[in-house]
């Protein structure tokens, strides 16, 4: 247990379902892997793919995106948009030479604390198997220029219109 690789993972959660699922996992004192640090968004549809790239390039080994189950979006259907972006994002990662498995999409309703916990632990193990992603870690330091000025404008190909 001592020397194994502990991945750093950023989790994007939707305010209505998956963040509440993680609340529920907490209230129920379910234990899961501590490697995922969460960022709360109002909706998985808010997830800008640059956030994922930013996380991966800043030292994260994986990114977990969680949202409401299809058909259960608080905002009616925005999680479908998240799904489309996720699929596209995996293709982009592939193009960049990064294992697409480093990004995972999980649906978890507010009642699914157990699912949230289990999926988190499972994803940590998957990333552990993939090993560290040394993108952005090598040039750690104040000189790292691109990270200070993220560009939000991105190509149209990142978006699939409804």
């Amino acid at each position, binding site marked *: 247990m001592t020397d194994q690789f502990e991945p750093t993972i950023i989790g994007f959660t939707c305010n209505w379902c998956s963040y509440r699922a993680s*609340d529920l996992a907490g209230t129920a004192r379910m234990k899961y892997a501590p490697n995922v640090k969460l960022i709360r968004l109002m*909706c998985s549809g808010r997830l800008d793919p640059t956030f994922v790239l930013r996380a991966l390039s800043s030292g994260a080994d994986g990114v977990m995106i969680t949202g409401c189950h299809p058909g259960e979006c608080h*905002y009616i259907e925005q999680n479908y948009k998240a799904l489309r972006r996720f699929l596209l994002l995996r293709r982009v990662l592939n193009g960049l030479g990064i294992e697409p498995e480093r990004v995972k999409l999980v649906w978890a309703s*507010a009642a699914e604390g157990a699912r949230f916990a289990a999926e988190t632990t499972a994803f940590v193990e998957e990333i552990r198997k993939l090993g560290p992603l040394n993108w952005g870690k090598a040039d750690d330091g*104040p000189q790292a220029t691109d990270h200070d000025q993220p560009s939000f404008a991105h190509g149209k190909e990142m978006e699939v219109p409804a």
Partner: protein
Amino acid sequence: MTEKIGVYVCHCGSNIAGVVDVVDVANWAAEKLGHQGVVIARDYKFMCSSLGQELIEKDIKELGLTRVVVAACSPHLHEKTFRTAAKNAGLNPYLVELASIREQVSWVHTDKAVATAKSKAVVSGAVSRVIENRALDEIKVPINPNTLVVGGGIAGIQSALEIANAGFHVYLVEREPSIGGHMAQFDKTFPTLDCSACILTPRMVEAGTHPNITLLTWSEVVNVAGYVGNFNVTIKKKARFINEELCTGCGICQEKCPKKVIDDVYEAGLGYRKAVYTPFAQAVPNFPVMDKENCTYFEKGTCKACEKFCPTNAIDFNQQDELINIDVGNIVLATGYDLFDARRVSNYGYGRLPNVFTSLEFERLSNAAGPTSGNIVLRDGKTTPKSVGIIHCVGSRDRNFNNYCSVICCMQGLKFAHLVHERTGATVYNFYIDMRTAYKAYDEFYQRVLEEGTLFVRGKVAEVTDAARYSNERGKLIIQTEDTLAGKQRRIPVDMVILSSGLQPRKDAKEVGKLFGISCSMDGWFTEKHPKLDPVSTMTEGIYIVGCAQGPKDIPSSVAQGAAASARVLDKILQKEVALEPIKATVDQAKCSGCKICNGLCPFNAIAFIEDDKISYINPALCQGCGTCVAACPAGAISGTGFSNEQIIAQIDGLLLRNLEPAEA
């Protein structure tokens, strides 16, 4: 400009401090995040206490803090508390960030070093993010003073009456033909053995005639739109085939209707009703409904006996379902429970062995207005049992069925024992795992039943069988169990078995939850906002849950919850307006290229394209703040308040501890 940030780490008693080294987290924040603007970092036993809040308020005033980070529980619990504290001290409430180190750290991890390290990262993320927070103004909207109560059982009736008596209008929607709920089916209520109808009927009548209550029975909610203060609800009023204006409730139609149907709802399958019926004599409203599926006219095209005999011509075979649209400010859900289906415990033989009864069947059997006029008899309708076994915990506290304790079954089992003893003189056995008689005067009732000579056996019954092993068992039901206190297996032959079945969530609870935007627990009950301190509110503002919809409970607790929710509703109504989160998207006109990508993405039709300027515009009144358009805009022209790109990017960096090195000048 440099911000002055205060970081406050909560112990939450030992909830956080037991796993996370809170002092270390606070010291670390002060030391490592100083360059980000952290000027003070404190830890405190309970940040949410008034003393904790005062601590923050004092620092804001004395140190001139411009941003606050509280590392404590989930923002869903106390974000509002700390925002209010900031507001009180003169700081814009949206310049406060919560770092959740309880639900997301201390409660789910065990290793202290790991949990402390994760807490530091979470705090770091919140500090980086809060710098990017912008002062926002609350959006205030007026509250519609009307209230919708869904479910006309005792909890819903109580809730409706409280609000109506305070002078506000209530729509009370009930799926069945009459209000009254399960309580209307009972004969006696524990522990005082009041007649259920005697205490319930006056309340039903009051609700039925109250000038401030619009009663919509035989109706269901089909759509809910809007938000707290401004819900728009669509209700389907199912066709009754009775003209309510003309009907006098005389009952002649029921008398003349030739079609007899087993009544699965009110009589729990133990009695009959007609195809046109009021479920029971004291039904409110007293108009019958016609059961289309069983009506001979609808089936075969002829009959119309009811129409022929109706003295007021109130029968209307052409009536259609009707959709009613109402605006309300608050919604109370009192949708109740379903009885656990005892057939699932196949070793108890319900459905296979005739003289095994469920609790609801027994309620009807013992009810003076029930199918046997209150005579407790076997399924043959005439034989009085000489010995009766009552089995507790059927379907409850059992991982094969429902994990939870159904709360009412012990007292229900004791009530049955008393009634059987009183009415038949039979030998009564009660089989229990643990006798749970908490609450006022409940244990006294247990004492009374003991005194009456009921035989108690501590053991979960293994099986009920008709396979006689020895001659004394022939023709009997044999209850096989371990008498755990005697340490021996026993086989007890009886004439009748009553299963004290548990309660479970309505089978459509999940869909109903979705309809109203609230969640269900793992067991399927509606989830309250806080299990102790906010048991009738939900995570969705303006929606309240009362009675068994929230979890198993008895009549006194259901009534108390009904009243409690009304107090919350009245509180909202009297405030006249409600503050909404100012989380909205706006278009920067200078950057918008007019590509229209965002237009199709909004499910609320909040984005319009202004042809003259060739740019998109977001209507703030319609925007719900999901942020999908923000993420989609290829020009980066749309920004979302509260969850801006800058905030999220900063939080990513903070979580990954990329903010530790002081930035080069």
